[in-house]
């Protein structure tokens, strides 16, 4: 299928592909030693972004909270743009507006003045201060700056009002990790700053979902509801980043929902903390375990049959509640769908890319479908990723060619490897893989962060049994669309 002209807008295809060197006919051979990113200094089209994004994502999941980014304006603008494109929602994020003077004299004035302006303009219920490369490099003493900001605020609006706005500091020097780690650090910073034990167990469980979309969090709540388990979801973006349109709205606008500050304080009294994405959220769960003895259950992501099974089993074990018939039926429906579609999925070659937790969850699921992974690319380097993938392959009794496991590489490496493969049926990954999918003429199923070129994926779960059914349908239908572009010839 060659697309020469985009029919609607009249833009020639070569202008959309901008400067990608085409695979054919004039594809030039690259020096083989420079293809693995580990051998290179240069990174080409990274598959991860910076720490502050993860922290901002987290703060936006708290009720009436505004992230305050201690850095230059771009650090905020780019992220707001990214969030808007993904969630189709406003993302209110304040910037400290670093200019040259801040780079020279430090960001104290920006923070103190900025917090004050943020409060008198927006009256948030919580401020999450997120640091950036620049504030970390110039060595801003954020703890004392925040104290100053608080003192200044007390003077201006009175101690009572000032002290009702908690300020949580998340240190996220971008050069030290990716957005996944930014979220992870935020999970720890929030419980460290806010959670306190009052000695009364609340009988709830904590859920730190990780970089899952609103649809996923709704699905997790659905599972919890059917289990009859009460939960505190830390960074609950299910409503804040998927809000209804029902004007008139008040000014300043705050979306409904989000985790209330009181709930975060209460997290130390819970039965256990589930960090559903091991790389994004584990730190918070571990902290609660160490400090307050709240048991930490880390992963696996509840994607696919076994992933969801593991989540529900752990819930049953901790709360003592049985898994209800309704969920067993949902499970049965997913397994039934697997049976109905196995002739389309068995032994199909698949490549998965994205954040490590998404790749881990999805890989386990595609193995349940009988697919054969060719390449598994986690954008963020992790100590455990390779081991985890190998464990999943071993557990599934996978007997095919061992896949290439990319731990923190870039998209160039992923693409060059796939080009050399004799066969590939499907790519599962985020919107950054679109170019690769077009070039290799292989369908792409969009999963994970970011998806900005299609509508509705942020509302559609991939977790739980029902999410599994949706993902399965998406996978099968995408392959059908490619294999049988003429629908008249195809009957399932």
């Amino acid at each position, binding site marked *: 299928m060659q697309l020469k002209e985009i029919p609607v807008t009249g833009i020639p295809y070569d202008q959309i592909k901008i400067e990608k060197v085409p695979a054919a006919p004039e594809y030039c051979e690259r020096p083989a030693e420079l293809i693995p990113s580990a051998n290179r200094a240069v990174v080409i089209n990274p598959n991860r972004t*910076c720490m502050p994004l993860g922290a901002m994502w987290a703060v936006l999941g708290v009720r009436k909270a505004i992230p305050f980014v201690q850095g*230059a304006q771009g650090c905020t603008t780019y992220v707001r743009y990214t969030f808007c494109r993904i969630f189709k929602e406003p993302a209110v994020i304040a910037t400290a507006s670093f200019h040259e003077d801040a780079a020279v004299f430090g960001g104290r004035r920006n*923070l103190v*003045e900025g917090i004050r302006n943020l409060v008198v303009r927006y009256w948030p219920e919580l401020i999450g201060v997120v640091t950036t490369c620049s504030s970390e*490099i110039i060595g801003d003493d954020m703890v004392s700056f925040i104290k100053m900001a608080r003192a200044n605020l007390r003077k201006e609006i009175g101690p009572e009002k000032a002290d009702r706005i908690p300020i949580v500091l998340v240190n996220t020097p971008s050069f030290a990790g990716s957005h996944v780690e930014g979220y992870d650090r935020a999970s720890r910073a929030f419980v460290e700053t806010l959670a306190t034990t009052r000695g009364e167990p609340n009988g709830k469980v904590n859920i730190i979902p990780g970089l899952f979309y609103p649809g996923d969090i709704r699905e997790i709540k659905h599972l919890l509801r059917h289990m009859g388990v009460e939960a505190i979801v830390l960074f609950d973006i299910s409503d804040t980043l998927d809000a209804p349109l029902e004007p008139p709205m008040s000014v300043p606008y705050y979306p409904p929902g989000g985790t209330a500050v009181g709930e975060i304080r209460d997290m130390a009294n819970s039965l256990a903390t589930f960090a559903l994405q091991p790389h994004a959220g584990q730190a918070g769960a571990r902290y609660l375990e160490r400090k307050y003895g709240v048991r930490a259950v880390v992963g696996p992501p509840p994607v696919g049959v076994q992933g969801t099974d593991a989540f529900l089993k752990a819930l049953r074990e901790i709360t003592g509640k049985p898994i209800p018939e309704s969920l067993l039926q949902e499970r049965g429906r997913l397994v039934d769908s697997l049976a109905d579609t196995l002739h389309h999925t068995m032994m199909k070659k698949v490549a998965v890319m994205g954040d490590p937790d998404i790749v881990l969850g999805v890989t386990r699921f595609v193995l349940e479908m009988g697919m054969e992974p060719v390449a598994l690319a986690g954008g963020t380097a992790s100590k455990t990723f390779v081991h985890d993938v190998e464990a999943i392959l071993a557990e599934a009794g996978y007997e095919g060619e061992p896949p290439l496991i990319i731990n923190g590489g870039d998209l160039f490496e992923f693409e060059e490897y796939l080009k050399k493969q004799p066969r590939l049926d499907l790519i599962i990954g985020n919107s950054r893989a679109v170019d690769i999918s077009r070039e290799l003429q292989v369908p792409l199923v969009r999963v994970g962060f970011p998806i900005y070129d299609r509508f509705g994926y942020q509302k559609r779960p991939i977790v739980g049994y029902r999410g599994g059914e949706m993902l399965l349908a998406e996978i099968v239908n995408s392959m059908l669309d490619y294999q049988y572009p003429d629908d008249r010839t195809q009957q399932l």
Partner: protein
Amino acid sequence: MQIPIDVIPERAGHLEVVEIPACDRRTLPGVVSQRACLLYGARWMLAAIRDAVHLIHGPVGCAYYSGTVRKKNYRVFSTALGEKEIVFGAGQKLEDAIREAVSLRPRSSAVLVYTTCAVGLIGEDVEAICKRASASLGLPVVPVNCPGFGGVSQGKGHDVAAAALLEHFIGRAPAGPPLENSVNILGEFDVQGDLKEIEQLLQRLGLNIICAVSGRATVENMARAHRAGLNIVHCGRTGRWLAQKMEERFGIPWRKVSFFGLAETAAALQAIAAFFNRPREAAWVEKEAETARQRALSYLRRLAGRRVALFFGASRMDSMARAFGELGMEVVLCGSQFGCREDYTESRRCLGRGTLMIDDAHQRELEEFLHRYRPDLLVGGTRERFMAHKMGIPFLVFPQETSPYAGFNGFVNLAREVAALVGAPVWRLGNSGFSRKEGEEMVVKHVRYMERGINENERSSL
């Protein structure tokens, strides 16, 4: 006249109903500004250079975000600095990265090295490294000094990029006589095919575009840019300075024109034809404009008397204000993230007194504005879009997302899309619905800045 919305005192001069607003100043921290950074501005200008390697020297995030400019995806190279380089220096990594990038993309004709906040702060001598790399590789390796914190907004980034273009690319080929009937377009970014529209019009005048900075620029055609007969400046903020310098250096005259709106497009084409002394070739212009007006007529009927608010990048304010005027809409706000005095003066001249002008409006000001004025349309960037939607106000993304708005066809597109936005049934659905108890009480509850009441705020939350 009084400013009709609630404003924090420090911002007072930036909102004006009669005069020119204060501009080009530092942003207040913490107010949720819509501005971006120097790197953003530089990428906006330089991204479209197709035969150069674009190397973002900084942490991986800056490269990740730099991959998308004007909704197009670009391949970017990055040094992806880690903690080690931040502490011990990133010079060696940059040198390696330049060499590797060129060997992986062997047909490149230049390397552009963008510096970021992190690099600006650790104080690497990027210039010297680029010079060395340039000598050993035998092709230009150009440093673009754009650490995000420099300047007050992305506007400065445009300047930095323009300076880099002038110094390293424009007019590098040997001098020669002007190429016949050739023009450059400066400050045209080819959003969704705008450039194609403009090019078709110029071709009908018998003209050729040598290069469009920076919608369709290559190292090769920029080198020949000094042989054009005329520079056409489309976006003043990004093109004017370059045009002036090219006039000084190469003696190329320039004209500031706009291709948005029928009258502006027609005037632009007439002026260009007159310059090249080809009035006969421009005979079709008026007729074409009239045809386009006829094509847009059914849309214009639906738009007459509607009110529109504009808030976007600087230089298109006045030309877009005129274009919306031609749609029959009343412009009630004209604001920009990084406009300079000249931009506001031009817009004020075009709009007259009484239109609210806001420089560097922040989220809260725009929300206030939407509440008080309830315009029929807000025009701006993606970041403001969903805020407007939540308030039940239609929103047009500009720079546009779907079809070209430049030229005669572009005007019809604009009319059609605006009519579609304003007339969409969703806005009726959003505003009626089921009556709710709180909904009835809560018409508009403002938290005034001066009241500073957190209790008020709690009451007003949904």
